């Protein structure tokens, strides 16, 4: 499943592979160590605090603030068709940090350092293969959470 994550994926195999399934269903998941309770976003299978390998996924709200950003004009292989694009680094409300694309709801001149944001799970709709990612949108943006495992 993790091969679905990102426009190009270099790491299809991981112990946290279900992250991508949850993302496809509209849920942003971090991890919590079942032994000591330490949480992490992005999720990690092996606890950085107590080294236990037992973890569970916990849902993050996706609310956060903008730590920094950049608009990329010189694209690497695999991204020539979407350049220019803007990367943002978001400090999440529940802790942790993520890197993602600035989404369509925020115009270039609306981007302000430390602004409040909402990270939103997304599916690449123009791709034949299943590809998922998350984007950075205006606070208050809502979306549907599915349950394909029904």
């Amino acid at each position: 499943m993790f091969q679905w994550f990102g426009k190009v994926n270099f790491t299809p195999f991981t112990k946290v592979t279900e992250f991508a399934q949850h993302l496809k269903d509209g849920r942003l998941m971090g991890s919590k160590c079942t032994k000591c309770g330490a949480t992490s976003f992005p999720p990690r299978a092996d606890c950085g605090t107590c080294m236990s390998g037992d973890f569970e996924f916990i849902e993050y709200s996706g609310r956060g603030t903008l730590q920094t950003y950049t608009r990329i004009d010189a694209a690497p292989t695999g991204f020539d068709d979407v350049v220019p694009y803007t990367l943002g680094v978001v400090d999440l409300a529940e802790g942790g940090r993520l890197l993602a694309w600035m989404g369509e709801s925020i115009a270039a001149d609306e981007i302000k350092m430390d602004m409040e944001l909402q990270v939103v799970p997304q599916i690449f709709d123009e791709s034949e293969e299943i590809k998922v990612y998350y984007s950075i949108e205006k606070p208050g943006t809502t979306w549907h959470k599915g349950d394909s495992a029904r």
Partner: protein
Amino acid sequence: MDLGLEGKSAIVTGGSRGIGTSVALTLAKEGCNVAINYRKSDAEAKAVAEKINAMGRKGLAVKADVSSFDDAEKMVATVVEEFGSLEILVCNAGITWDGVIWKMTEKQWDAVININLKGYFNYNRAVASVFMERKYGKIVNVSSINGLRGKFGQSNYAASKGGEIAMSKALAKELGKFNVNVNVVAPGMVMTEMAESIPAEFLNKAVDETVLGRIASPEDCADVIAFLCSDRSRHVTGEIIKVDGGQYI
């Protein structure tokens, strides 16, 4: 088998007679709110909506010409607003206008293509973004065994019915990742008003063709369609199920 359709909302095109009515009523019996369209026959359409309301569900008759892109868009928006949600689309409205090709007029061809094939495009297109956003949807496009085989005098109908099948396969691929199933039901001869005007000898010929020795009722089709509208068929997509009693194997 409990189809689990309680509280779902559906659109059925061509729901004021034949297979369409049977589908609308079957879905309503299973717990759905159902909206049907009508172009001219508002009395029949409203009667079906009444029957649905009488079952304790929401029934809605919406004036919409299936061959109009805008009408389809408007109807979907109206239904989403009235019912609060939309999970199911059954495209069923269609006509025949038979003739051998060397006599077929341009109007004959265009009418069948626009109502049948373009009509299915209009509605599939209008619901796609609704289903994608909700990450859930069931689409059943009703075709015909005459979209799978060639029938004398039906080049226009065959083109439209065959087109609906291929279109549905493409849509299954596009919408799958959003948890939307797109399937086709291909009936053979069905005992509807459309069929009642067929001469007896042709009807008998059809009976002889079927290995089960009978012509389908609208309910025979509606039951299969309802199954494909439910989560019982959650892992079936891009599929064609013939409901033809073995008329074409």
